[in-house]
């Protein structure tokens, strides 16, 4: 009898608070979601990988330090209703857009080699093209960015202090 009461309360809670509004723990989504399908042998996971809870109307900006002489792989993942994911790489000093994945039909994975250390702003939007207008307004889901890195094969120190 007690169990039936709990079940009733649970159903009532789900009716009142739609599932997508129950707080989600997105903190390590990039370690659990589709991003992990991109995990490459020989690469290490970068600590500046990040997951956030977002609505398709949101924009997320991640300011990330990329050390030079390293290859990175940036992999984006989200709940299936949130795709495609639009991302850009922006030079925060000049605001120059260095890359925009709209030019590559919203690819979700990009390799970037950094000859020199740079701070880069990664902007992320979940376009949610398969969601209805109502879903776009009301849904909140996890979006993750997994960053992997490895040193350049032959470490070429082409920077000298002057």
């Amino acid at each position: 009898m007690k169990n039936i009461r709990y079940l009733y309360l649970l159903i009532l809670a789900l009716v009142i608070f739609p599932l997508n509004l129950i707080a989600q723990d997105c903190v390590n989504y990039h370690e659990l979601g589709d991003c992990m399908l991109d995990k490459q042998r020989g690469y290490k996971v970068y600590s500046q990988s990040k997951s956030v809870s977002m609505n398709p109307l949101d924009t997320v900006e991640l300011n990330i330090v990329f050390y030079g002489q390293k290859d990175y792989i940036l992999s984006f993942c989200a709940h299936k209703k949130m795709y495609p994911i639009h991302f850009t790489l922006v030079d925060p000093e000049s605001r120059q857009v260095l890359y925009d994945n709209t030019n590559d039909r919203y690819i979700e994975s990009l390799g970037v080699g950094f000859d020199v250390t740079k701070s880069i702003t990664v902007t992320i939007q979940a376009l949610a093209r398969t969601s209805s207008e109502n879903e776009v307004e009301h849904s909140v889901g996890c979006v993750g960015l997994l960053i992997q890195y490895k040193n350049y094969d032959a470490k070429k120190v082409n920077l000298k202090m002057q």
Partner: protein
Amino acid sequence: MNMKSKYLHSGKLLLLIPLVLATGCKSGCNRAPGKIDEQEASEIVQRIEAMKQVYHLCPSPAEMLSVIDFGDMNFNADLLDPVSNADRYLDTKSTTLALGIYATDLAYCAIFGRHEETLNYLEVVRSVSEKARLTGAIDDELVQHARDNVANLDSLFLMSNEAFINMLFFCERNDRPGTIVLLSAGSFIESLYLAVNLVDDYDNAGYLLQHLTDQKYALENLMVFAESLKGEDENVSAVIEDLGPIVRIYEGLEAGSGAVTIRTQTEATSEQPKKLVIGGGESSPPTLSAKQFEELRQETIRLRTRLVEG
């Protein structure tokens, strides 16, 4: 334009609840009149549209140190904060900063493949993290895994990184951005301290100096993040003040041209992602003069000494 946006985002969820409750029953519902009309809903949506979450992220201690080529260097235990100092740290600020310092020392031991020291520093990181109320961030499984793989150099590095990331995750889950600032500040200062002590001769320290110069990006991110919490957390405000002299040295750096070049190296295939290469072109990178290096060395040693004394 900072971490505060994260909290605005939480506020947005609160705004969304009545909106969804109001629009969740489009027909057949007797909604109480006047609670929310279309215009209000539209305004809320517009406000939501303007929302932007901005994060400034910092590298882990292991990543900051791994940039340094330790190949020809000897392990120097005298540079580390002794594990016996752990009892000195009593208040939240000194304990959390010490946690960042110990996490960096752990990474230093791991990079050199020093088995015994790595396990000792992992234990001290665990005990200080408990003291800083990051309960369970370093769990038994991680410690046991480190013990079982102590002979594996790569595994030690990954374990030290995982320990730091777990602490960040813990802080995020428990809404403790101030703790992330203190932890990151402690690890930044210690990594700077180790690097400045590795420079014997300015004229022959090319790559190390470049690393020290590059740390301006990590410091900038840390400071923007910290500034967003200034006034909300007195420990963060105190750390901003502590870092002031170092920030001013970095602000005085000759900026370099700042030019960026970008080229496509490979197009995407089913086996590999598209690859770009970002470089500095023919431009000169920012530079740290001999005078600035000396100032940075002295300020770093002064601040770090004060922090380890608790």
